């Protein structure tokens, strides 16, 4: 098969598996975010029905080595803890149905310690504030069934204070709307049962205008399309029940055009270099578009639906 009208599942599975032991410059440069990388790769594998192709015990043991005494996880062994890696670690353990190996109180106390008086969250002890971390905190604690550990009302208030004139959300109050940031805020509000704070029609319209002529989606007005927004924009639209406001077929075509059909993997735009980040977002986007053969993904938890169901059953 040399056409890009279908998803080359086996190629992508092989590509992701090959990353496990890869020692090239790319993997060296991204060593510090390996926890995120593992989450992207493993979730993509699970969506494609191949989660068990990698050594589960080895991965879980590595994850646990990334945990610090404070409860938070680093991006790799020896790296400092951060809320973003803590979320990825918890998500991976949820994929493997191994949340029980975690001391959820310890993680909950780490995250609680990062919440500020205004409801916002530090990413780590060094004080960077961003609604990405609000999502990290809320999603992670929900998966651990420990949302009671934080002041959820304040967390919601802070997210709402980042709402903009276009209905979107920024990183902090006054920050420009950006599809990635919008996903974080909308998904966090969805998990917190507070979607009524979102102006669905206004934001849905802005989001559907992210689709450009090629069918791809961009993250802000007048920007280039990128496969990662197939996730950020589409998941937000899915949560808002407005996926039908974009042309699904042409988006599907755009994602498929970004495949490396020779070596596997998906890139940001056609003919660019592939990576695990875009491979995951491409596959996740196709899952939201109900591409045949892929598992369904939950747009808020960014995990396969069966995994989320299992966590909360």
């Amino acid at each position, binding site marked *: 098969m040399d056409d890009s009208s279908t998803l080359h599942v086996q190629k992508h599975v092989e590509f992701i598996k090959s990353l496990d032991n890869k020692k090239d410059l790319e993997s060296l440069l991204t060593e510090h975010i390996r926890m995120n990388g593992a989450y992207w790769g493993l979730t993509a594998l699970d969506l494609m029905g191949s989660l068990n192709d990698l050594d589960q015990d080895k991965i879980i043991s590595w994850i646990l080595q990334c945990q610090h005494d404070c409860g938070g996880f680093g991006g790799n062994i020896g790296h400092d803890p951060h809320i973003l890696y803590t979320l990825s670690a918890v998500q991976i353990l949820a994929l493997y149905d191994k949340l029980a190996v975690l001391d959820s109180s310890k993680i909950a106390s780490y995250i609680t310690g990062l919440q500020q008086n205004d409801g916002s969250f530090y990413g780590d002890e060094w004080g960077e504030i961003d609604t990405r971390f609000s999502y990290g905190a809320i999603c992670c604690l929900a998966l651990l069934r420990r*949302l009671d550990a934080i002041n959820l009302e304040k967390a919601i208030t802070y997210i709402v204070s980042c709402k*903009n004139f276009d209905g979107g959300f920024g990183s902090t109050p006054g920050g420009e709307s950006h599809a990635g940031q919008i996903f974080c805020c909308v998904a966090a509000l969805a998990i*917190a049962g507070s979607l009524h704070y979102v102006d669905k029609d206004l934001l849905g319209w802005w989001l559907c205008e992210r689709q450009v002529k090629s069918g791809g989606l961009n993250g802000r007005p007048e920007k280039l399309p990128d496969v990662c927004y197939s996730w950020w924009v589409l998941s937000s639209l899915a949560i808002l029940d407005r996926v039908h406001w974009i042309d699904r077929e042409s988006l599907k075509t755009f994602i498929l055009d970004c495949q490396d059909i020779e070596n596997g993997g998906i890139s940001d735009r056609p003919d660019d270099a592939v990576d695990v980040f875009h491979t995951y977002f491409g596959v996740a986007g196709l899952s939201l578009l109900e591409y045949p053969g892929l598992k369904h993904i939950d747009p808020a938890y960014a995990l396969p639906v069966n995994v989320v169901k299992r966590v909360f059953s």
Partner: protein
Amino acid sequence: MHGRPRKRGGGDGGASEQKEKAKIAFLEPLQAQVLQNHHNCCYTKEALQKNARLLELNPEVNTAWNYRKLALRHLIASEQDVEVHKALAREELRVIEMALARNYKSYGAWHHRKWVIGLGLSLLENEFRLLDKFMDADARNFHAWDYRRHVASVQGAALEKELEFTRKKIYDNFSNYSAWHKRSTLLSQLFKENGVDILKHSTLSSEFELVHQAFFTEPDDQSAWFYYNWLLDHAAAAPDPKLLSTWPSDAVLITIDEQSEPSQLLHFRGISGLEETILLEGVPIFLCFSKPVTGVSGLTVSVQSVPDSKQALHGLWKPVANKGGASNIWSADLNHFTDAKIKKRVYELSYNVRIEIGSTQGIISQDGHPFLGPVHLTFVLRSTFVGSYIVKDDIHGEQNLKIVEDDKWEPHPEQALAAQSLSMLEKVTWSEKLMKEEIGLCRELLELESSSKWATLTLARLLEVQQNISQDKRLTLRNNTAEVLQLYEKLTRIDPSHAEYYQDRHSLNLLDQITSDSAQLKERWSIGLHGSVLGRDIGILWLNGLSLSKLGYMERLLSLQMLDLSYNHLRALDGLEALQFLVHLNLSHNLVSCVHTLRPISKLQRLRSLDISHNKLTGNSYTGSGVSVAVCWDLSSKNRMATPSSHTFEYLNDIEDVFKCMNLEELAIAGNPGASDNQFRVSLLESLPSLKLLDCKSVP
């Protein structure tokens, strides 16, 4: 990796591969050394240089930035001389600039800069110079904009100065959405601080001029159009919540037949009659606001009935669709005051009920705007005893009333409801003039660029806004709606990838037109063919076959009991929760695919008969285009307040969640993919113990 071209074929062992190997050989030990120094708390000059070298090559290594903060803290603590401290800070800023030169989107580098500046050892003016450099390189760099906002707030920079900066950036490039966005935040702040309408008018007028220049220059560019859309909203409507409608509405007469039998059953075949009859267990009051509000209570809404002076309300005001304590619709029950009179055999009694909404402040929209009341309404309740004079004791403690309402289709004149202060009138006049001018300009642009999607869409918006604010609503509506509908049809053609968005807008306008015109409503209204209650006919509204894909304006149809929405394109049912008197609803032949979409219907306590046949419903919520969110954390749940430790998380069982609180007696689901799914039927039947007919067959 963004924007890096894909390599073809396998490794060629050539020069580029050699180069990569060399880089790895350099980088790998460097990364290891930097981490080791971090773990050993080694803050020597050499260690710091190694760290700087790494960050110049790879600014994304968060831990390396953390190390620098620890090092700086350590070095400052071990040295008294402020000049040395300043030199250390300068070195940090230099390292950051090197890192940003490698990747100007590095979160770690920008945050480190904030952190260093926070030490107060460097001049803020230098930061603005640096920012100018970054903005020249990329005027859309949101890290730079965020950092500028931070520095400006630390410095206490005047709003006007920042506004001027955005103006300059916009004139440099009308496509700079970041600058338009920034302008929206600054103006909002300005309005908040000054809050004077006059200022608002003149400021807004000059904003409109700026946008006109932008979209006449770049009519295909989104940025200015989004900003324009926001300005229009600002100019057209105050953000305070409005009272859209009530039941009973103002100045109506309601007759209560005190003699009806207590009965739970409604029949849907009957003969004609002119009155509307509703079977109720008490006299409810419904208030519909334009947005979700909190604070509706006995304090903020006063209800008096004359001549009876006793407590007029039975129980409390309740939100109909609770959204974190707020709701668009609130309801309460009038106190039942008949018992004593019944015993006295008084056969006709009249009460004036007077309601004042917003009698004291406290009703607040969820986005923090107070309801500007008070708004009054008065209606007459007349109790009669027709037919037999024998009054039965109600052994079940239920008192069923039949309420007969006359002339129910007269739409509420909104002006009567809105408190019309002089300043509001001035604003309306100003806004109307403005809309007229803007519409003129948009038409001008469309003459030049007839296929401009943005100009077409904006003209439709403007016409919508115009009819909303118009003082003579009905006249404007008639003139505008036909054109608005045509514009959305045109948009569906010229921008087909967003066709379903335009169809949704089209549906809303169509419903606006139908529901505000009593002649059209009467045309779509029939009585006696489909239902009666206790011998009195009830009418049905036919909104079938209109290609509706979205619902709206349901608050204008509060007393509706039977509604036919079949043969439309509905995917979502939001808004139906307003129809609290609905007993029969036909949604057959629509596009409803997820059970959770039916949630608004679950708020309809009086609904007995639902036809949802020939839709796309399946037992699985994850098919169909809408994907439901797995778990909701219900902030409003009483459980949570009472016992904070008992948080329960359940994967929402949509079927049970939607149907268990309903009292359906008839349900039609044939023609849905889920109808043949046995599990789906079983959970339906389990959730609906009251069901008598499923797809016209008796439920065993």
